């Protein structure tokens, strides 16, 4: 079976592009307010990568529009001159979604960071894309409201990036992802038209275009205003950390919770290495040396939470939990979460370099998958730390390596890719929340067949017939990914010297 249909090849084929000339720069300068243009080489470097620092491309120009109209005007210029453009929020993305295109421009939304309105009665807010995720909750906290999606990067990452990645967080098992909390978007199409997707009503007539833009990783257009749904803060929250003799037993405890009909607000698992790293970084009180720990949080109506919290402890004990620590107050709870949310960055404490991986398996395959990961890690001679959203089977294996050792980075990258492909074999997904971006575009063929990809390419072409909006992301480019789904090969751009690996 071929990997791509003829139609797919045609749809994703690169169209002729224009160049960012001095004249183009001037035209752009004329449509954005002062301070909105960055073309100093030293400053451009700031934008050459996102959180996936291994891939770097210096953009020809960075534009920081201040309004929807300015974004639309810049996009119209790009469309007219066939200049590729890449939207950018805070640049915390972990899949190279905001990786610039050489000879293209970056449209940064950082200057658009106003909370436009808060409607307390109707529990929603209208915000600009550059507002941070945590900024929304902070602004409405006084009304006992909050924005539910809570990526660990929430202090920095923007709502625009969350919309583009359909970001989740520890609490999405119960509350869902960004797509479940966005009611309307003001959207600049790749032609530069400004349209509204969604609205005051939960339902619009016809296909749900808002839904397809959510999670489209900036490839369908630029989001310039977001109406988010806010939730009432729960009456009660209870959190515990339970230690287990091994990950298998921790996994069984999660299965038993689910079987008991309990839907926790969050269930997170950390393995021994992850615990070690977190403790070194933030001393959150996890038990050093414990092979596995579960963080379980329940929230909701007081009487219900109390009843279920007892059962959670019982279930943990039944599954051989060696120690249960109950967070007695908000300060203690914050400490537990600080440990968990610092997990990625904490790896720096135990390894010079690491890859953050993101894959999903059916939750019931947790035990067997962890065993396979351990075997693969042993075979490769590289350590793998595991932190994950255990409730929904979203794994974040962290592959530790030392870039100073020749060849180890490549080896680590191979291992990370093999792990994610293992997830697909188990019936899961190549990404649960970090997105496909440029990093995993070539792995899309592991999950989707030729016709599936063709239909996605048709959707993309419907929005962006010229192929200028964040090109090279999400959908695999046959020329770069090779013809056959197979083991990961080095990115040809790398060999071509267009991007460099640090």
């Amino acid at each position: 079976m071929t990997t791509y249909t003829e139609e797919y090849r045609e749809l994703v084929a690169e169209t002729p592009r224009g160049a960012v000339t001095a004249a183009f720069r001037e035209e752009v300068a004329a449509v954005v307010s002062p301070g909105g243009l960055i073309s100093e080489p030293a400053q451009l470097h700031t934008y050459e990568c996102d959180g996936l620092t291994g891939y770097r491309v210096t953009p020809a120009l960075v534009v920081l529009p201040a309004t929807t109209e300015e974004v639309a005007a810049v996009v119209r210029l790009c469309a007219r001159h066939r200049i590729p453009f890449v939207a950018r929020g805070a640049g915390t993305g972990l899949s190279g979604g905001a990786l610039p295109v050489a000879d293209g421009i970056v449209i940064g939304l950082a200057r658009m960071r106003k909370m436009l309105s808060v409607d307390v009665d109707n529990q929603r807010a209208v915000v600009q894309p550059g507002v941070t995720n945590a900024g929304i909750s902070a602004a409405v906290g006084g009304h006992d409201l909050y924005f539910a999606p809570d990526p660990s990067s929430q202090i920095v990452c923007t709502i625009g990036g969350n919309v583009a990645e359909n970001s989740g967080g520890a609490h999405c098992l119960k509350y869902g992802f960004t797509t479940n909390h966005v009611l309307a978007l003001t959207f600049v199409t790749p032609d530069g038209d400004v349209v509204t997707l969604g609205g005051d009503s939960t339902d619009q007539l016809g296909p749900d275009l808002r839904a397809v833009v959510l999670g489209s990783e900036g490839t369908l257009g630029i989001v310039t205003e977001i109406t988010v749904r806010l939730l009432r803060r729960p009456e009660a929250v209870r959190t515990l950390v339970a230690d287990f003799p091994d990950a298998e037993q921790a996994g069984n405890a999660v299965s038993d919770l689910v079987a008991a009909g309990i839907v926790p607000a969050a269930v997170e698992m950390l393995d021994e290495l992850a615990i070690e790293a977190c403790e070194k970084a933030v001393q959150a009180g996890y038990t050093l040396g414990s092979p596995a720990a579960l963080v379980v949080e329940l929230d909701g109506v007081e009487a219900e939470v109390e009843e279920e919290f007892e059962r959670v402890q019982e279930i943990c004990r039944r599954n051989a939990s060696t120690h249960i620590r109950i967070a007695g107050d908000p300060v203690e709870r914050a400490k537990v979460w600080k440990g968990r949310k610092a997990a990625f960055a904490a790896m720096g404490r135990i390894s010079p370099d690491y890859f953050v991986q993101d894959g999903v398996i059916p939750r019931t395959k947790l035990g067997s998958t962890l065993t396979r990961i351990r075997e693969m890690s042993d075979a490769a001679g590289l350590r793998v730390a595991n932190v994950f959203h255990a409730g929904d089977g979203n794994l974040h294996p962290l592959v530790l390596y030392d870039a100073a050792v020749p060849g180890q980075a490549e080896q680590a990258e191979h291992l990370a890719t093999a792990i994610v492909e293992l997830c697909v074999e188990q019936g899961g997904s190549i990404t649960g929340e970090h997105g496909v971006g440029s990093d995993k575009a070539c792995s899309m063929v592991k999950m989707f067949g030729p016709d599936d990809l063709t239909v996605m390419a048709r959707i993309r072409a419907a929005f962006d017939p010229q192929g200028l909006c964040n090109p090279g992301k999400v959908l695999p480019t046959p020329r770069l990914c090779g013809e056959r789904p197979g083991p990961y090969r080095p990115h040809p751009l790398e060999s071509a010297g267009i991007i460099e690996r640090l």
Partner: protein
Amino acid sequence: MTLVNSTSVAVERPESVTEAADLLRGTDGPLLFRGAGTKQAWAGRPVEPALVVETGRLSSVLAYNPADMTVAVGAGMPLRDLQDLLGEKGQWLALDPSTESAGATVGGLLGTGDSGPRRLRYGALRDLVIGVTLVLSDGTVARGGGTVIKNVAGYDLPKLLYGSLGTLGLVAEVVLRLHPRPAATATATVQVPVDEAGELALRLAASPLEPAAVDWGDVDGGLLAVRFEGTPAGVEGRRSAAGELLGGAAGVEWRTGADEETVWQRLAEGHRPEEEETLAVAGTLPGRTADVAWALSEAAEASGVRTALASRPALGLHTARFAGAPAAVGAAVTAWRERVLAMGGSVLLRDRPAAVDAEVDAVGPPPSSVGLLRSLHRRLDPHGRCAPGRLGSWLPHPAPGEDRDRS
């Protein structure tokens, strides 16, 4: 199997996705997809199809993993049958549309975006669908999403199909996220007019009580029902605070068991059309409930038609029923829709007698995103075969009988 009905429209009931794909690839002319046929009149009236594809035989359970709380089914699976199956494991698809009892299918529910009272707590099918198999009119079979709850690989095809009303292709298979059946439930009812119900709904939303459903119906002079579900202690523990919020012990009645189910069945009636009635659903900000009701009574008065309202005020979803002469009904629907659109809402015209069609634009003015919709439609259904006319003027479609160009 080919059936030919009275007006000599071919009806096919494929038994597999491959068969469905072959069928679409091997034919041309307008198509109509049908599950249980409970919502064939929603939105615009499609042109006479050359072929009706029924999903009745695409109705098996493809995979059910109770421990993962996911299920994959053929699109023709009736919701009612699915709930029976899931109930054996103490689970359910958290969706309770009033058309369930009429045999509504999972695929049809996704395509129409129908929902019920407990959408307040669990979301709509949009929030519960995690994977889909779509057959395009050229026979291309595409899968989107996956089989795990959390997955952001590729475009969200499953959710795109929510509300698509069969205009993009045939939904052949659906993968769903499930919930545990709550152990306990109780409903508080209070007799109030609709504007007061709207106020109470906002106060409930602002409270930490987390109601599962808040419905108001024109029953016994105006009845607001508020359902709470969860653990027995959780339901019991909310009683006093909920009772107080709803106006003190005097007016509040608590219902459980058969009594509770009866209340919800009566309220569901308000969302079903009686013979010869026209039904339309408005979506607005929750805080607009009283305005929607007021606009409806004014439209009724001006056109001389009888109307009734049933509202889900915490969701901002309001079902209006109209009865009267077709021209008057058309005028009332149009007037009401104008008011709702002016307050930022949307309106979906649902069931109606054929005679009303000539009196009302079925879809109303197009939204600002109509260009994107057309362009997407052109890519997925280039010959405009899927239910042409369903989205009225929003999508181009030939007049009935016009020759179809398949160049």
